[in-house]
Structure formats: structure tokens, C-alpha cells
């Protein structure tokens, strides 16, 4: 067991100082040496592109949250499928699932997907997907 040695980190500190120094110097030099012509177009946040409309801190529409909730649920359910897909059909020494169980477990996964499908149809019937 080795003890903690600060000396091994010195190169990182030197690197940090160098990076910060370079960034600050470059910005300061550009500000001091470069010519500044302040026209209205140059003052805009995006010099080329659409003119910004309104305040950036406006509220999101509630509709987005509905979609977010649905996405969250359906997205995370994949977490159950991933270990099954990665483990179920391994062969030889790495096999974790006995071969006889592959069929039953597949049926269980299908039931799980069917439950999700019911959830999807429920959301659909409730009109969650209508953009009102």
C-alpha cells in the first residue's frame, strides 16, 4: 500500500496555472490591442441568425412536462431490458442463466413489454399526445 504523495500531482498544478494564465492573457490582449467599433449589429448576442425574441427566462409550456414525464418512464424501463439482453444468451463459462430458463424468462420479458404497451395505449387514450 502506497501512501498519498502530493508530489505526483505537481505537473497537474503547473498545467492548471499555465492554462489559466494563457486564457486570461489572450482575452486581455484581445480587449486591449484589438480595435472596437460598436455598431448595433455587432452588439447583438447573435451577430448572424435570428433576432432574439423576448426574455430567455420565460416559462416552459406545461405540455413539455407531460412529454417529459412519459419519456422518463418509458426511457428508464429500458434498464430492465439491457441486463437481460446482455446476459440471457451467453454461452459456456460465462452463462449466467440456465439454458432451460431462457424461454420462460423471454415470456416474462414479453409480459413486461405488454404492460408497457398498455401504459402507452392508456396515455394515448387519455389524449396525452394531442398538442393542445
Amino acid at each position, binding site marked *: 500500500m502506497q501512501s498519498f504523495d502530493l508530489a505526483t500531482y505537481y505537473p497537474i498544478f503547473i498545467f492548471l496555472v499555465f492554462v489559466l494564465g494563457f486564457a486570461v492573457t489572450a482575452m486581455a490582449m484581445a480587449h486591449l490591442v484589438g480595435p472596437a467599433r460598436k455598431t448595433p449589429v455587432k452588439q447583438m448576442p447573435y451577430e448572424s441568425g435570428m433576432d432574439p425574441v423576448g426574455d430567455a427566462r420565460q416559462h416552459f409550456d406545461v405540455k413539455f412536462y407531460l412529454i417529459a414525464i412519459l419519456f422518463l418512464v418509458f426511457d428508464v424501463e429500458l434498464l430492465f431490458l439491457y441486463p437481460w439482453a446482455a446476459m440471457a444468451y451467453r454461452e459456456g463459462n460465462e452463462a449466467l442463466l440456465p439454458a432451460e430458463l431462457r424461454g*420462460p424468462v423471454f415470456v416474462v420479458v414479453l409480459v413486461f413489454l405488454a404492460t408497457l404497451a398498455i401504459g402507452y*395505449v*392508456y396515455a394515448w*387514450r387519455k389524449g396525452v399526445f394531442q398538442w393542445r
Partner: protein
Amino acid sequence: MNPTVELANVYLLALPEIVLTLSACLLFLAGTFRQNRHFWAMKSLGILGAAAFILALPFYRQPVDPLFALQAPNMVQPIVLDRLALLLKIVALIGGAVLVLFSWNEVSDDLAAEYHACLLVIIAGVGLSAMANDLIILFLALEMISIPTYVILYLQKTDLGAREAAAKYFLLSVFSTGLLLFGFSYLYGLCGTTNITALLDGLRSTDAGRLPLIALVALVMVVAGLGFKITAVPFHFYAPDVYQGTSLTSAALLAFVPKVAGFAALLRVLDFVWPGNRPPGVALGTQAPILFWILAAMTMTVGNVLALLQDNLKRILAYSSVAHAGYMLIGLATAPELAHQAAAVGGGQAVVFYLVSYGAMTVGAFAVLAYLSTPQAPIETVDDLAGVSRSHPAVALMMAIFLFSLIGMPLTAGFAGKFFLFLGALEVRPEQAVLFRCLALIAALNAAAGAWYYLRIIAAMYLRTPLRAIDKPATWPGLAAIAVCAAITVALGVYPTPLLQAAKAAVGQ
């Protein structure tokens, strides 16, 4: 054994719960096509009946006494159908049927299918948490109860108070979930397995004095997390606010279901069930009885004292639910000592008995309030019940039975339950006698204090003149729910032996 058969056996054990959950999924979907509260309540009663039929089927083919024929949990199976699981599953199904009857006319047509589907998932969760022999299953089963409860709290009423109640319950409940999970993670680390039987075996083989500190932390966290579900002080403070804000059906659900599941989980995880030759409840440290002693004393005292100050009926019943959790905790505190001296009625046994009695009387009391309430004129304060005995003599009589049972009058379930719990505390052998006699004394004082606020309600019903007319048309489902609860309350009070025997078999002592 063939792994396919093994897997199939596990699924067969949980077949009633699987039927309940899958039907609930279909109910959600079908509810978008048809909106009729009578139709969906009838359907969910049918589904509960089907689940009960499936539960009873194996015992029909092998006609042996079902309460004594089952085996202890083993180290392989994630779920077990032992006597405790069977008893609590029957209780859950009956309780579910009563709740369906009770909420028959209390939910609106457009939400009926969702409400009943959530209720079915909750009942399935109670069954699963009673059967769980694995921390993962137990945790998920408890969440199967919590998450539909949030939805029910949130769906049923739309005024500000109800929204606030839903938000409050949700935030505190997820906090308790976090505590419980953290405790579980340490339990897992102690023995490297999530199977509860294997875990407790590993802990028992360690010398009690040499358990790592982490075991004590796990004990405290698990008790805190589950203490929220059973409304033990200091995790009780949400109860009065949430009960007051939400509808009567949800309040009854909250008073009954989380308590059953919480005590089932406490009994299983903390080694009160199937303890073998060792005293129950001390696998995670010999400090457990003292912890439960303190919790019991605090919970009953705070519940009863604060209930004295209330005028709102829902808040009174909320604090009474806190107080009764305190009485039940006495059983957990005395269990190790009583098992040591082979007492007639063990601690865990008394807890299971009281749990069933408490469920019948408190759900019944809420059902009476719901039966008399109308949306325009809800029954909220004690004054609203004034003179009910004249307009509704039968209902008032049944309310009086529930309240007498909550007080602990003889010939009611509440008396039998309190008798076994308090007697247990008095029977503890000499070395610890002073400590537990103090607990029995505190409990007796509390029961006396509790009598005051229950009697106040009875006095209002029978002695005062009505302040306003209660004209609610009679509905048979509501009456049926009240009648079932009253029948159970009286039956358990008059003849407690069968349930007492079943409870003894359930905890395996």
C-alpha cells in the same frame, strides 16, 4: 430441481397478486372506454374475489388445516407463502373488498376505473410484502403500495387542501423510502445476501456483542423508514394534516394499508417471525427492545395527548391511528422477553392480532363518516355528528361499537387486542419487570386518556340535539362495508381464540 419448475413455483405462489396487478393494468385501459362507478366497483370486487379463489385453491385440493400446514421460509426462495403471509393476504383481500364497498359512491364516474385499479395494485402490494423473503421484493412491494397511494391521494379531490395533502404525503413518504433503502443497503453489506432468511441466519450466527456498528445503523434506519409507514412518533406528523386534507376513503386507506405492510415488514426483517430457538427481534442488536420501548411510549403518549386537543373528526382519527401504532409497538418491545419465558401470548402474536382488530375498527369508523357525509354537507367536526342516533340509529350504534372498540371496552376487538398487549408487558420476568411494568402503566394511562375523546364523540351522537339534518339516501355498499367491519370487531371481541391461534402460528413461536 429443474430450474423451470422452480421459477414456476415462485410465480404460482404469487398468482393472486399477479392476477390483481394484470387486471389493474387492464382496468386502467378499459376505464378510458367506459366511465361508470358502479360498473368498475363491481368489476374490482369480482377481481378481488377471483384472487381470493386462486389463493384458496391449493387448500381445497389438500384439505388440511391451512394455518398449520405451511413451511418456514428457506434460503433460496424470494417469496414464501408461510402462515404469516397467508393470514395477511386474507386480511388484505378482505380489507380490499371493504375499501371497494366503502368507496363505491365516493369516487366520481370518470375516475372510478383508475381509483379501483390503484386500489387493486395496493392490495397486491400488501400481499407481496407479506410474502417477501427478499429485501428486493420487500422494497418493491412496499413501493407498490406507496406509488398508487400517491396517485389515489392526488386524484380523488381537487381542492387546495387535498393537493397539499398529496404533496406532503409524497415528499415525506419518499424520504422514508430513502431511509429504508439506506438501511437495507447496510443489511446487504452485513451478510452479502438479500434473502431475509439467509441474512438473519448469518446475523444470528454472529455473537450478539460482536455485531459491527453498521448493524445498529441499519436497525435504526429500517425502523425509521418503516416507522413512517406505521405512523410512529417522531415520523407521525404528516398523518393529521394528510388525513384532514384528503377524502375519507383515502384516509381509511392510509390508516389501514401502510400499517399492515409496515408491521409485516418489521416482523420479517427484524426477525420476529420463525426465530427458531433464539429470542425474536434481536438479530440486529440487543438494543432493539429498548428502541421499541421508547418508540411505543412516545407514540402512544403523543398520539393520545394531541388527539385530546382536536375537534376535527379526521384529525382525531389520525391521532388515534398514531396512538394505536404505539400500542402495537409494545408487542414488538416485549416479544424477545416473552419468547424467552414461553408466555401464553407472545409479543409478535399480539401485534398481528391487534393489527387485524385495529384495521376493522378504524376502517369502520371512517366508513361511517363517509356514509353520513354528502359533498355539500361533509361530516367534519364532532358537532356535525350531534344527534345522529335519532336520524340514523343503526349507523350510530355501529359507530358506537367502533369507538368503544377503539377505547378498549370488553366484548370488542379493541379490548381483546389491548388485553393481550398489556398483559404481555406485565408478564415479563423479574429482571426486566420494572421497565415493562412502567410501559404497561403508560399504556393504561393512555387508554384512559383516549377514552375521553372517543366518549366525546359518542356523547355527541346520543346526548345532543342535532344541529342540522343529515339527509343522505341509504346506499347498500356503504352499509355493507360498515356491517362487515362491525361484525369483525364484535366477533374478535367475543371469540378471539381462532385469530389468536392463527396469529401464533403466523409468527411461528
